[in-house]
């Protein structure tokens, strides 16, 4: 199966609710519909750089994604520990990390009750197509290459959130 198809826009899920007053048909922008108002999400950011975690969090907010809570982990093992006690709506994860890298982390996710069905988007400097395919086949729903802009974060994250069920 080509897991890359997971990035294709899916219908908005319960994280968006309709504004009924709007009369004109909305334009589609970055793969999500403007007439849906966002409900705050809880995000888990996994990166061994605390500076990069901060940048990712800021980019999410600059992208217009309403984030209520942000959990941070320095590697995959820390992230798994956080997920055993907390529920999140989105996971953003680096690949190259000490202790447990991003690929091993997403392979472990099906065994974590709180992580079932939670979309994972990889954020990494790794540009290898083989690593991208590997990450997607392991269950990642999107892939953002560093350096990135908030617009690129929006472009990759919003469709993934919209498709979350």
């Amino acid at each position, binding site marked *: 199966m080509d897991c890359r198809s997971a990035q294709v826009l899916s219908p908005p899920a319960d994280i968006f609710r309709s504004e009924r007053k709007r009369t004109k048909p909305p334009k589609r922008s970055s793969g999500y519909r403007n007439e849906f108002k966002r409900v705050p999400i809880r995000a888990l950011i996994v990166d061994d750089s605390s500076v990069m975690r901060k940048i990712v969090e800021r980019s999410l907010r600059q992208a217009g994604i309403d984030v209520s809570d942000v959990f941070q982990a320095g590697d995959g093992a820390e992230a798994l520990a956080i997920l055993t006690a907390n529920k999140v709506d989105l996971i953003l994860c680096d690949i190259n990390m000490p202790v447990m890298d991003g690929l091993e982390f997403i392979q472990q996710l099906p065994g974590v009750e709180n992580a079932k069905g939670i979309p994972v988007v990889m954020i990494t400097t*790794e*540009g290898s*197509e083989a690593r991208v395919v590997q990450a997607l086949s392991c269950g990642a729903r999107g892939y953002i290459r560093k350096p990135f802009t908030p617009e690129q974060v929006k472009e990759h994250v919003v469709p993934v959130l919209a498709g979350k069920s």
Partner: protein
Amino acid sequence: MKTINQVLTADGKHENWAPLIEVAAKEVFELMLSCELTVAATAEEPILDVTAMVGLAGQLSGVMSVRCNTKAAELMTSKMLGVAPDKVGPQVADALGEIANMVAGNFKNKISGLAEGCMLSPPTVIIGNDYNLHSMADSPAFEVSLLFEAMPILVSLQIAG
């Protein structure tokens, strides 16, 4: 199969790499720090006391480094964190390491075959300038001098022979 290092040694077709390093660095600063790097006029040797290095291994082996002074490093960190320069602390090394990592990654992704065939090491950051670096490589180093907010930055790639 020849490595890129061997190809370089054989035909010396790497004169385009310095511009690629420049573009890679400029893109990182533009996208992640929202600021534009300009090309520096080569004059006197600046004092650069923060050095961030990332190793490359595989089809290309060598070291990519980003050097700057402390004030520039603190300003970069403040821009990355979105805080005032006087509020940055121990994150300077982390921030500079990430910059070097992204410049190296962005550079290798611009060269056909390197994205797949070249791995990056975790970054290493040296604070201070009282050291001598001895490279065992006999291949040329590519150096690009740039200005970040009027402060000098030196981005270089030392290829292992």
